[in-house]
């Protein structure tokens, strides 16, 4: 099973300088962060959808479609029901649904799914090594940049290990879908121990491998990846910045 999100494609989004990608990502995240209304959320959605199509990342959106639907629906529902606003239709305990809370819930759902989609776009079009390279270019020390990107490198591996451990326990009759929640929570603890021990063993092996390849060595480092800043990168950075400024100003 493929767990990494990077898609090998030859698109203008893939070809952008990693620093331009990081800058554009930050700018668009700012825009998403200040989005509260459904109208602006929809506009941002369309922009992000266009970028996903341009970067030919649709396969990943399809792969994670249920997560998108779940996050969107749950956010909208929770905000619509629990947000206290004027003019509630009914008030039952903590529930205060109103036209305003439904609108704000929709905006929040769009904001959160936009965050999610932007992250997906970045990881679908940027290799982890490019991300590390961009961080180094931005002045982040190489070791810090590596550790920062380590999470992205390891998450797919841990997910894979977790799935194997779950299968191993199911083969011994562990049914995680049955019983009350506290029993299920206890059963999950049985799964976590082997995952944790496996992670520790892997971390040990990785630390030695890093050391053997000179990770702790002092002195200058070089970079295999060579990127040239082009006018396309400038245009992408400026456009993303203008969008963020416009969203902040509106």
């Amino acid at each position, binding site marked *: 099973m493929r767990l*990494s999100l*990077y898609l090998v494609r030859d698109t203008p989004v893939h070809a952008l300088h990693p620093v331009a990608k990081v800058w554009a990502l930050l700018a668009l995240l700012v825009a998403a962060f200040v989005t509260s209304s459904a109208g602006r959320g929809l506009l941002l959605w369309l922009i992000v959808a266009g970028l996903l199509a341009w970067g030919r990342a649709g396969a990943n959106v399809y792969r994670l479609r249920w997560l998108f639907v779940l996050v969107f629906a749950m956010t909208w529902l929770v905000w619509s029901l629990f947000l206290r606003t004027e003019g509630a239709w009914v008030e039952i305990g903590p529930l205060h649904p109103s036209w305003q809370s439904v609108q704000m819930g929709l905006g929040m759902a769009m904001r959160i799914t936009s965050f999610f989609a932007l992250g997906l776009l970045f990881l679908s079009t940027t290799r982890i090594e490019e991300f590390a390279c961009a961080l180094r270019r931005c002045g982040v020390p190489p070791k810090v940049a590596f550790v920062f990107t380590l999470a992205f490198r390891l998450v797919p591996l841990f997910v894979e290990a977790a799935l194997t451990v779950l299968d191993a326990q199911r083969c011994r*009759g562990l049914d995680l879908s049955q019983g009350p929640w506290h029993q299920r929570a206890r059963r999950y603890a049985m799964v976590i121990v*082997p995952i944790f021990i*496996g992670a520790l063993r892997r971390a040990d092996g990785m630390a030695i*491998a890093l050391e053997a*390849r*000179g990770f702790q060595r002092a002195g200058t*480092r070089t*970079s295999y990846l060579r990127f040239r800043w082009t006018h396309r990168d400038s245009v992408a950075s400026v456009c993303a910045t203008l969008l963020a400024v416009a969203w902040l100003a509106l």
Partner: protein
Amino acid sequence: MTAQDSRALAACLRGVSFCYLQAGEPALRSVDLAVPRGSMTVICGANGAGKSTLARLLDRSIPSFYPGELSGEVWLLGERCREQTMASFAGRIGFVAQDFEAQLFSTSVVAELAFGLEQLGVPPAEMNRRISTALAAVGLEGFEERDPASLSGGEKQRLAIAALLALEPELLVLDEPTTDLDPQGKEEVLEVLWSLRARGQTLVVVEHEPRALEMADQVVLLRAGEVAACGAPGEVLRQVELLENNAVRPPDLVRLAAAVGWETAPTSVQEAYERLGAPRLSQGRAGSQDAASTGAANCLLAAREITYRYPEAPAPALHEVSFRVSPAERVAILGQNGSGKTTLARILTGLLQPAQGSVELEGRPLAAWSLTERAARVGYVFQNPDEQIFTARVADEVAFGPRQLGLAEGEVRERVQEALALVGLGERANADPFWLGKNERQRLAVASVLAMHPKVVILDEPTTGLDQHEQRDLLQLIERLRVRGMAVVMITHNPWLVIEGAERCVLLAGGTVIFDGSLPELVQAPELWRRARFRVPAAVELAARCGLWVRSVEELARAVAGRAGRCA
């Protein structure tokens, strides 16, 4: 040590002893070793003999990562090591660990190789040359943009080697580099080592593959932390009894030569065949019982024409595969990495649902059984025992499955004792599994499945990381299970486990069954086992050429001796 000595040797140990922190016994005792530059040294011995500890001393992960008490002199690349850490030798000493997957963390092959070069500050233009050379040396040209996660086991291992070769180390240390690989993958890695040796690369390899022992310049046999034998392969390998006592399987033809009294061992099956005078030998008593044991009177677990495709995979992992197993039958599933063996096992246990076809357990569709009912009938021991062990006490680990079945505590206790006794862990019921050796953890995983009283036990690569003696214990355990009426399905690359432990075998290639029959039939069909990248042991191949079916070198030797007797 003189300056001249230090230049000629890549590594030199004098009276070295090492005891891990908080360990009662030293792992190495007064070890003397000299590794000449440009040579290949193979270290072998039983598990726990100190092989990995010796490798760690040579790559300086002792004392950098494994603290303990170290005495004696360690010289590496002409330097007397005192305070030097692993980082001091980065790029000059390369180390490939047993768990090579933990050493791969990049998203492309080329990025994996570039990582170390970047850390060492190698100029980009020079990087291209080194990356091309290293990939060519391990036969991975054309893989530059591949994701390491998508490579086969053999390819990943070769990538781990290439990542260090790119650094152009003066000394390369490899700890069991062929563990987990199918016979073809092992062959690929050994070919790489062979070519590196020919190029003058200094290699120290912890390995027990007979072929690796034969290709070395120097073989070091460790026993309880001490050097039991050290010398050229010809000298050490002829000490068959010593090797066998130390859980190292000597090459088949060397054992045969010792058994029949030849002065020198033949170098190939063809040579042995010619020495024997190209005979037709009569079938000995031991082999006669094997050919007919493939009948399936009562089918216990059966898959019929199943097809399975992983999401996003271009081709199905299994295509119209049929499989059956009867009570007390021992079946081996063979095939190269990625041929669909584990997918088949997961379908047989209900972890995966086939897209087409059906699976029946005791004549009833597998899906009709509940999760616990299935677990009580089909046991699956995963390749890595650490993926299932989670308790702090051996007895609790074994009791987990029976408790899931809702059994009374008295019966749970009985089953725990019985299962632990069956795997030889009866004395370790109160031990913490975390501190058990790999072999014991493997047996614990088997016991935790046996305590469910399954009718079929599926063992996924059960000999990984086990030495010769431990493999012998496993074979005895499999026989005990058969006697109790359990069916055993083994997924394995280990040729001797198949020959000695199974009656029937199923060969998978590209997701389809290309052979399903008895072992004597398989041995007679080299085109099939080669297609599945399986290797029949040399002794069995030689016997087959003589018209004989044997399960061990000893059986072949007896047949040869019998013929000699008749001729006299």
